[in-house]
């Protein structure tokens, strides 16, 4: 801990604060309050209450969980605002909702109904294949997905106040989540050991803004809160993500597609809190009933949601 005295400060041009109304500190602040927590996908107010009782730190209000989007196909859009409102009314914890990538009007609607966080998500069908939402224009904070460091920093530059590594949603297979977390963390480790002169070319190579790359190098981590997502189905999966260095975990289909959602939800929450204590992990992993079935990603028919956006 040689650099323990160093205070790093936001706002040296790295991530600028746009509107006075909702400064970046307030947007990042909520994400910081979610650290060490589990965010669960729910489709009904009852499920939201189960998640709250289990100790989830936020819920993601959806019409269909990713596993169902996968099996049913068709265009996946923003959920009915009525449903989101009902879920919001049923719990006290923050409520997130998904908007399609690039669909800034869906985001405006979500902001208008007062969701706490908008997830610009590749799990929904793309609305714009080229551009993401300019998230600086909103007072509501955004969370965005990434597969690697460059993608994460591009999203942060667009105004995302929280990052989740993508994984492969709705598969119950954690392999892609591990790949993406490893990729981000590995790139940061490479960056940390890099000579300052080489950072310019590195920024070009990963197609990320230089100032954010440099800030990441100085910090030794992403400059915003980073959660893991996509394919987390067991307490062990969740603890794995935490030990790899994430600040928290999104669990999508993993809870409510399993045999005993109540116990599994609670077990995953406890696993995240005690992620480095194998004794507790063993205890909470016992007798949880059936996990979600899961999908083998070697099957070529499985669409890769993570690759939908850059």
């Amino acid at each position, binding site marked *: 801990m040689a650099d323990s005295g160093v205070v790093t400060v*936001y706002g040296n041009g790295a991530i600028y604060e746009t509107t006075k109304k909702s400064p*970046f500190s307030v947007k990042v602040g*909520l994400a910081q*309050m979610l650290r060490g927590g589990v965010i669960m996908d729910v489709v009904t107010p009852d499920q939201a209450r189960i998640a709250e009782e289990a100790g989830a*730190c936020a819920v993601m209000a959806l019409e269909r969980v990713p596993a169902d989007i996968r099996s049913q196909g068709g265009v996946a859009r923003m959920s009915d605002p009525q449903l989101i409102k009902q879920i919001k009314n049923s719990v006290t914890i923050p409520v997130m909702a998904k908007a399609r990538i690039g669909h800034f009007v869906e985001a405006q609607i979500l902001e208008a109904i007062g969701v706490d966080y908008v997830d610009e998500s590749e799990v929904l069908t793309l609305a714009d294949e080229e551009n993401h939402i300019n998230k600086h224009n909103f007072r509501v904070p955004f969370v965005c997905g990434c597969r690697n460091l460059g993608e994460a920093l591009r999203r942060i530059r667009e105004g995302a106040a929280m990052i989740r590594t993508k994984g492969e949603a709705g598969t119950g297979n954690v392999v892609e989540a591990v790949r993406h977390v490893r990729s981000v963390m590995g790139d940061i480790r490479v960056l940390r050991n890099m000579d300052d002169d080489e950072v310019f070319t590195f920024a070009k190579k990963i197609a990320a803004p230089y100032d954010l790359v440099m800030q990441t190098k100085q910090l030794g981590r992403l400059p915003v809160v980073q959660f893991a997502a996509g394919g987390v189905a067991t307490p062990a999966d969740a603890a794995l993500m935490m030990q790899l260095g994430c600040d928290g975990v999104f669990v999508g289909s993993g809870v409510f597609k399993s045999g005993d959602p109540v116990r599994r939800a609670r077990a995953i929450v406890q696993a995240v809190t005690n992620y480095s204590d194998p004794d507790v992990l063993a205890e909470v992993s016992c007798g949880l009933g059936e996990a979600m079935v899961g999908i083998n990603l070697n099957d070529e028919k499985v669409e890769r949601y993570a690759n939908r956006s850059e």
Partner: protein
Amino acid sequence: MVVGVLALQGSFNEHIAVLRRLGVKGVEIKKPEQLDNVSSLIIPGGESTTMAKLAEFHKLFPALREFVKMGKPVWGTCAGLIFLADKAVGQKQGGQELVGGLDCTVHRNFFGSQIQSFEADVSVPELASKEGGPETFRGVFIRAPAILEVGPEVEVLADYLVPSNKVLYSSSTVEIQEENSTPEKKVIVAVKQGSLLGTAFHPELTADTRWHSYFLKMAGEVGGGASSSSIVAVGEEDPGLNQQSKIDLPVFQ
């Protein structure tokens, strides 16, 4: 000097980082027995519902109440303030367990959802007189609670004048178990009662460390140097696995 930080969920890393900047070691508290090794405690911000659930799972409430009862210094920020309050309104269905000790009524999530979260310069005369520096403190209010009423023994350290357009009970959704629902104009956002300190905002998110040094002085007054020998043991007991310290996020100045 070692300060315990309740590390169930939320901004405990941030608190430990601020303590480190002040040259003080913060240790994570996740189990009741770990409380025996510290003489003061910070309950961080986070989702109070979540933290209450986790504290229940970890059977921490009796130990926390005992800790407060023994007169050891405890500081709650945001969710931690809700923990310390004797009474909280606007809770989830079925309510949530509290530690109590601070004679006041807290409205959980008073300001509404994230859209209503804000930053404000809060006037802090008491803090400024003890710690110096400017008369105001940059308070970051994230889905923050507010203190509606305080008992006679509670010292008010800061209050906040709510702009009339900001008082919206958008959380009318959540049952507000309040009798008189006319929102007051001025709410209390920082209090002290004996060895208990509570702030509705998050000093751990900004660069100004005055609240932390204020609390450390409170802890110093009570704890004294006598307990330092038992404190050293904490660091040694911690298995290496827990000590892979996380790198901090930047802070706002």
